[in-house]
């Protein structure tokens, strides 16, 4: 329910973004039309500042199962760059106490690169005009009913909120230089694919796109174990995760 609340709050922010982008053509608010016609330097600066802050409004929501981010993790993110190829995600994960000495909460910061996107089906099914919710031009793969991203490259950092782990080794260990690794932070790299359903303009309620993905990943300490040993293969250190990604706008 909290997630739902989170998503709704993002939607509310998204509406503000839409309004801000389209205020030049908004005929309902004559005041805005008047001020846009002769904006002072101050008004322009306010408008500019508001628009820049609105760029921080997350455009994505994610929910993931497994994949080294927790049993279940959920969060939000931003897509940006040419054809929105880059994505940054922040997610909170959870490990129930049945899987260890105690329950654990963790935080993941993830960067995705989605170099290719292919539309499947009629190119104008979801969006005949090719103009996104914010007035941005849409690549044709996002106008099709379904689009397929064969490769999603991902790097992520995960930190666990648990006193048994440390970033800086405690001084008791030879003045803090015995184990020489930050047990509280893990570095991961992965590759996955995803299939996206582009929701037709007329039927959008909360999202304009829903994507289903898997990601195969591994982590620093597993690689350190595998490298000097023929016995440990790539298959031994790969982890599978599944998720759903919602695009708000």
């Amino acid at each position: 329910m909290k997630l739902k609340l989170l998503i709704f709050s993002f939607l509310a922010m998204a509406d503000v973004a839409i309004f801000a982008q389209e205020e030049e053509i908004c005929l309902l608010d004559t005041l805005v039309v008047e001020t846009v016609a002769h904006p002072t330097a101050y008004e322009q600066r306010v408008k500019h500042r508001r628009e820049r802050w609105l760029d921080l409004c997350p455009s994505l929501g994610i929910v993931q199962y497994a994949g080294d981010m927790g049993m279940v993790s959920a969060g939000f993110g931003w897509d940006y760059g040419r054809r929105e190829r880059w994505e940054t995600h922040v997610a909170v994960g959870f490990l129930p106490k049945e899987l260890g000495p105690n329950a654990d909460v963790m935080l993941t910061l993830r960067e995705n690169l989605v170099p290719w996107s292919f539309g499947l089906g009629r190119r104008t099914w979801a969006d005949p005009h090719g103009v996104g919710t914010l007035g941005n031009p849409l690549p044709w793969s996002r106008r099709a009913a379904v689009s397929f991203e064969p490769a999603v490259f991902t790097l992520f950092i995960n930190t666990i909120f648990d006193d048994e782990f440390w970033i800086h080794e405690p001084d008791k260990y030879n003045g803090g230089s015995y184990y020489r690794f930050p047990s509280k932070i893990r570095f991961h790299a992965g590759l996955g694919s995803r299939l996206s359903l582009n929701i037709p303009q007329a039927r959008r309620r909360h999202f304009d796109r829903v994507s289903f993905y898997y990601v195969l990943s591994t982590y620093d300490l597993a690689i350190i174990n595998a490298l000097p040993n023929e016995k440990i293969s790539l298959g031994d250190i790969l982890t599978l995760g599944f998720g759903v990604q919602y695009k708000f706008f």
Partner: protein
Amino acid sequence: MPLLAGCNMIQYHPYECHFDGDRHLTQKNLQQIESLRLGPTFRFAFISDTQRCYDDTDDVVAHINARGDIDFVVHGGDMTDFGLTDEFVWMRNSLTAFQMPWVSIIGNHDYLGHGEYIYQEMFGDLNYSFTVGHVRFEMINTVALELDYSTPIPDFDFLEREVNYIDSVNAVHPDSIAQTVFVMHSRPFDEQFNNNVNKPFDRYLHFFPGMTADAEGAHLRSFCLNGHNHHTQTLDLFGDGILFYGICNIHKRQYYVITISNNDYEIETVDF
């Protein structure tokens, strides 16, 4: 618990403690050692510090299996480098290829993160003991620094119970326990050992059979084994004749073969 338990590629997090396959291995292996009904003469191997060396561990397992003269194997701790579930599982899978029973103690690296919890799930108690022939094996946890000395390590209550047990057995059947082998990861004076209790620990050792010389300068028939230092060395740490035999890490490709016979022992260092 995992929805796709059959698929071992599903991992929630590197620090998740769930694992498939064998668990409670100490108890199972002790039952196997007991079922061997070993007499007063037997032979065991001692390896230690196998962390992150799965290929070397596979080699030592094959080497010891091929000999055909080893009754059981003792591991001196540090099976993992980072206390990861993955590492425990990979190392367990290498060690379960031993054709004879094998037992272990916890090392300081095995404590890292949730390692202590995983060790207890996979193996069992951190202090335990067993008798083979006339020899009592005291498998004790000595990595005190990992718990900031907040837990009694070494556990003198455990040692006290052991002394009382041995005395009670020997009272009924004199000399049925004539020798003691102490197995520990970190030895006294190491940074991991609780060095505030070095001398009390040494005094307690003398309560055990074979740890005190019958005549001045005589050879003791009991001894201690340790890992942790990554060096093969024999030290008389307290100058009282109690010898600490340290074995190197497995990457240096050595192990001990210890033969117990006639209430005495022989230690051979084997390269593989």
